[in-house]
């Protein structure tokens, strides 16, 4: 099996530097790291990839059963590490990817030596005393939104189909992000992401970990960031002055600064 093709693996940066994996979250692909990559390429070997079912991954590799649990995605991460023979790599995961990184580090401790968890949440649904921020019904609504946008996409896709001569990169972006988000695969990823409960996995983290949360994140509120920090022994928590769930996009300088400082401290 060609893992590089399956996960659309891109390797850039300094071949001699320590490896850093950048893992996108649900709903996007490796392009979301475009503001992060420039801050890392000088000192690090930067590995980007798309999860199966996202971006430009190989759609034929999609097996619903495998990706019905975060372990399936984590196995893919381990296989990417093995294919590139990475050792002690730092895994930077956004949102659900932060939890996938936790699982991958547990499966292959020799491969993953540090974790950066960007806007992580180990469980999105409220549970007794735990406040995840959402109810099971809310998650169903998200699945509905996915479904209705499947039809709505025709409007989005029109400029791509017609071609957009003066902004070719726009067509590229749309193709990257929308084409590949097959609704059936997105549905599986959404269910796996938002119905997962990885709270117990946090306690098993044994590698240096940086937790990044945002002052104003509708998906992973600060109390969730604090919970993750509390659950991982020895972890560092940095709260970014950022709004939204994607600080690496909305506040790239502050995010890059926090990540590079943490990575530098590992050496």
């Amino acid at each position: 099996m060609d893992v590089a093709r399956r996960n659309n693996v891109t390797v850039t940066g300094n071949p001699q530097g320590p490896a850093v994996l950048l893992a996108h979250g649900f709903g996007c692909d490796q392009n979301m790291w475009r503001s992060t990559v420039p801050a890392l390429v000088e000192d690090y070997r930067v590995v980007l990839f798309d999860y199966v079912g996202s971006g430009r991954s190989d759609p034929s590799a999609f097996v619903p059963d495998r990706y019905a649990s975060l372990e399936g995605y984590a196995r893919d991460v381990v296989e990417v590490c093995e294919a590139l023979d990475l050792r002690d790599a730092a895994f930077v995961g956004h949102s659900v990817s932060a939890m996938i990184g936790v699982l991958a580090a547990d499966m292959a401790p020799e491969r993953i030596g540090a974790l950066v968890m960007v806007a992580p949440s180990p469980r999105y649904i409220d549970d007794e005393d735990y406040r995840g921020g959402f109810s099971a019904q809310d998650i169903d609504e998200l699945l509905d939104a996915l479904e209705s946008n499947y039809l709505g996409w025709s409007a989005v896709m029109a400029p791509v189909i017609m071609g957009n001569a003066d902004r070719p990169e726009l067509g590229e972006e749309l193709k990257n992000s929308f084409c590949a988000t097959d609704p059936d695969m997105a549905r599986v990823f959404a269910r796996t992401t938002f119905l997962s409960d990885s709270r117990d996995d946090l306690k098993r983290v044994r590698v240096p970990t940086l937790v990044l949360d945002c002052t104003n994140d509708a998906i992973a509120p600060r109390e969730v960031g604090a919970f993750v920090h509390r659950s991982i022994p020895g972890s560092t928590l940095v709260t970014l002055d950022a709004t939204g769930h994607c600080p690496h996009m909305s506040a790239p300088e502050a995010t890059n600064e926090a990540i590079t400082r943490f990575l530098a401290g590992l050496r």
Partner: protein
Amino acid sequence: MMCREEHDPRGADQAVFAALLEDSAEELYESAPCGYLSTLMDGTIAKINATLLGWLGRERAAVVGRMRFSDLLTVGGRLYHETHFAPLLRMQGEISGIALEIRQADGGRVPVLVSSVVKHGSTGEPLLIRTTVFDARDRRAYEEELLRGRKVAEEARRQAEADRARLQDALAVLQQALLPDALPPIPGVETASYYHTASPDRLGGDFYDVFPIDGKRFGFFLGDVCGKGPRAAAVTSLTRYTLRAAALHDPDPVSALTTLNKVLHERYAGEGDPRFCTVVFGVLEPDAATGQTAVHLASGGHPPALVLRADGTAGFLPTPGGLLVGILPAAPFATATTVLTAGDTLLLYTDGLTEARTGEGRARLYGDEALLSFVTDHAGERPPDVIHALTELLRGFGDGLDDDTALLALGVPAPGTETKHTI
């Protein structure tokens, strides 16, 4: 121009133009038939038009500077916004036609189509997000109908496929139950068999079996129940077990067929849908001292068996006058005997083989003579090799083989010959 008004048009139209001129940009913004809003990059609402406020059922003061765009959305929509819409808007600078729902102050929901564009400053830094919101209630209702229709159709298709797969599994199991798993070893005799199923959807009516009768004799039979499908399979099952039981009681071939005839006739003749079969039933009696095997068989309406001799000759073992089994309360059966010596093979087959089409339509069938000629070329070969050759022959018929076909070969191997094929 097809038709031109000759009077001066200016009187009435001038009043309309005047009214249009009074429609300021501000008026157009506030009362446009779509919602407008502008937000800071963090989503905080800085400006919103009256149309959208009307849809939301909220006061301007409660919204501007106090709410974010995502606060206007349903929770599911907010998740979608945060994970998909917002990152894409960041990446592309614009995004259009995204279906979301906005929440009204009274808890109601309005399906909308949202497009946003980022306004950049003179140095390229993002300043604010301009968003238009279109009422999509009618469109969404239509889309939901489409989605519902698609779901129903997909569910029906999935169900149909599952049913079909389950049915095929069940049919395969039933078909297997009509045939022996493996033929028992017979001292001094080598056996081989093959079963071709014409259609996975239709249970076949062909059958065969080989089984021990007592310490020195073995029974065998091969036949064809008229018709196909579950009813034929039921007859096949009844036939197979009746023959085995009858042979244990009295192994004489005619007695076994007579018992079967009685059973089938009594079971089916009264129903107006008579069921019957053709069958060859026989007994093998290997003699360890001579290395020869005696064959006694009887046929009820079945095509004659073939005997392939070690010397390279072959011939039919005629059983004329044997009647279909099950058709009359008492039926005549024809008997035949032969002795198999080293290198001889007895071959039983069903008419799927001889009735295979070899040309267009049903005008040209394979036939008895072609079969005799074919097996003559394989006379002297061991049973597995004969069956292998016939299997290849059947494969060569392709679509011409549209009936089930059963083959059973029983032979006395010549000393020192190696079997080329294992069946």
